[in-house]
């Protein structure tokens, strides 16, 4: 490997937008193929990669559509390359067809959804409207995607390595679910992993091309026999159960003495931290459970905390999606509250502190039922 | 010149392309029925086959093998 292509030293402090940090992080993690289609608020990713991949001898293609881009990824991943695409809500919807095929073919690749407001064309402001789409597979058929939710430029930059390694370990697509704020915000970060030498990534025994001396290989998602497809579905199920058991990430803050736990991810989690710190100054004890993997969902820890604390507040930038997973994890054992700001609006720390105080005051609340704290 | 023509009658679906293509009109349907339910094509007179391979070219089933040593 030519050392000139290593742009930043490991641990070196740099200043980048979240989208740029992510783009650099993917190249650093071994990505050498990008295909995508412009859409706000993720355009810094293809723009950055258009010159950066050129520098490292990779391929950048601006495709004619998201549909085409994801199928270019299918081809590149079929050959074993660390492939990448990125988009935002409407574009991810178009990519779902291809993602379903790649999930069925069990090929690893990475994609990012830098979420914007929806449904429809919505707007280009930060939003968390695609949680359901991300965590339930998103496309047709019965499959799951590993979903990582960064809350900073640091995580945008460093998650790609974790994402590629995990995707390849389980032969499953992996996505980064960010939002317009995480993508657009510029902040200091450093890379915590060394630049990956792509020559040293082990070759995979399922990729196509160069069939010399072996049986021909077929990458296929068509299984006309119902028995064969059922077996394939159960094989995938067993893989997903294994991922659930082995790869659930979350961050806990101030949960030891908390009277209420906020569950939030990404931008909502960051702002919730501001509310928690301000609350602590006023003697109000709020804790935070931040899921880092949205699928698999950290249901065990949420269940434990809910039973200990008794009150759980989900804060989201939508009208309530993650809160349904929280409700399932709580399983009727604690009070469940929800506060949401959809449409591209972002809650303030004071707003969140206010609703947390409201929730703390509420009595005789039916456990397990979702109590919406927005004044509608 | 040695010519050998072999028809795998189990593969034949009786489209008649080879009968049409044969410049010597040396192919015809057999009276028997193959396992797929078709009257397969057979060679009328092997000694008349010139080994041109036209029947092979048009056969969708690759049921005809022609060897031509000239």
């Amino acid at each position, binding site marked *: 490997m030519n050392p000139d292509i290593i742009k930043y030293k490991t641990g070196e402090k740099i200043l980048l937008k979240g989208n740029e940090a992510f783009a650099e992080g993917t190249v650093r993690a071994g990505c*050498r193929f990008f295909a995508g289609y412009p859409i706000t608020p993720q355009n810094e990713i293809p723009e950055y990669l258009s010159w950066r991949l050129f520098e490292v001898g990779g391929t950048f293609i601006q495709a004619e559509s998201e549909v085409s881009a994801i199928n270019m990824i*299918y081809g590149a991943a079929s050959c074993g390359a660390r*492939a990448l695409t990125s988009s935002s809500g409407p574009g991810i919807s178009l990519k779902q067809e291809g993602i379903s095929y790649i999930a069925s073919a069990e090929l690893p690749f990475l994609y990012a959804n830098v979420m914007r407001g929806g449904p429809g064309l919505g707007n280009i402001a930060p939003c968390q409207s695609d949680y359901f789409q991300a965590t339930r597979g998103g496309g047709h058929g019965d499959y799951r995607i590993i979903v990582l939710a960064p809350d900073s430029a640091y995580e945008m930059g460093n998650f790609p390595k974790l994402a590629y390694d995990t995707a390849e370990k389980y032969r499953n697509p992996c996505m980064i679910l960010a939002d317009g704020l995480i993508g657009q915000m510029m902040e200091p970060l450093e890379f915590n992993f060394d630049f990956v030498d792509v020559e040293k990534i082990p070759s995979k025994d399922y990729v196509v091309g160069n*069939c010399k001396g072996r049986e*021909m290989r077929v990458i296929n998602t068509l299984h006309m026999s119902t028995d064969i497809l059922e077996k394939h579905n159960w094989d995938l199920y067993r893989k997903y159960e294994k991922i659930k058991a082995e790869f659930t990430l979350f961050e806990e803050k101030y949960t030891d003495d908390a009277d209420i736990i906020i569950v939030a991810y990404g931008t909502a989690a960051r702002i919730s931290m501001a509310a928690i710190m301000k609350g602590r100054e006023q003697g109000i004890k709020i804790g935070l459970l931040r899921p880092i993997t949205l699928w698999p969902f950290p249901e065990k820890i949420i269940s434990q905390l809910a039973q200990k604390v008794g009150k759980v507040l989900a804060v989201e930038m939508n009208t309530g999606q993650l809160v349904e997973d929280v409700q399932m994890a709580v399983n009727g054992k604690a009070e469940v509250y929800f506060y949401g700001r959809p449409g591209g609006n972002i809650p303030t720390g004071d707003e969140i502190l206010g609703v947390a105080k409201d929730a703390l005051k509420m009595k005789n609340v039916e456990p397990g039922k979702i109590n919406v704290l927005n004044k509608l | 010149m040695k010519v050998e023509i072999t028809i795998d009658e189990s593969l034949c679906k009786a489209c008649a392309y080879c009968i049409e293509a044969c410049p010597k009109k040396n192919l015809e349907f057999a009276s028997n029925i193959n396992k797929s339910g078709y009257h397969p094509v057979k060679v009328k007179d092997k000694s008349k086959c010139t080994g041109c391979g036209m029947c092979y070219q048009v056969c*969708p089933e690759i049921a005809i093998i022609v060897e031509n040593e000239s």
Partner: protein
Amino acid sequence: MKRVYKRPEGLSKTIMRYCPGCGHSIVHRIIGETIDELGIREKTIAIAPVGCSVFLYEYFNCDSIQVAHGRAPAVSTGIKRVNPELIVFSYQGDGDLAAIGTAELIHSATRGENFTIIFINNAIYGMTGGQQAPTTMPGQKTTTNPYGRDPKLAGYPIRVSEMLATLDGPVYIERTAVNKAVNVLKTKKAIKKAFQLQVEKKGFSLIEVLAPCPTGWGISPLKACEYVDKVMIPYYPLGVYKDLTQVK
């Protein structure tokens, strides 16, 4: 000199499940022969479409990928950019290529991607039961044109080769047919040339093959070949539409 006409090594031993008189298997065999003659089997990847030829991955004796309807040129692009030494061909019908996959086709052609598309134009959707294709002839009856295709309601057939030849990206575009021996031989020549150009890294090529679909058209195989001659070829003239290898 010994000439042997037999099943090429490029094809697997699996028996092809096509209807009597179908043009697909003739073209499969031609591709198989081409793979043999160019000695490229070990580095070839076949891209299977959605349509009657969806099981193509069972019929070729090389690595293959089955892809979503119409997306073959995008998948081929991904493969060739990651591994330019591989030989990639996509095999697509008229619905796959000229309806749902039009964008992928045109843009891979204009980028001049170095792979080969074999386009089977039989003017109908065979696998789904004989519905209208983008290339269905005016007046032709299909299961979704019970009164015959009326261009006023259903538009005109698309001449893919002519359309692509207007682009600067492609290097070689030819339309052939497999309705009779002489046309089969010309198809072989065209397909072999297209693969040869890919081996030489010359760029994008497409061979459009007019093929009979006796079942979909509801006529006998021989009548279907006649239909190609009398109805299709006048609308879709055979010949070379672009050949940059001829340009000095």
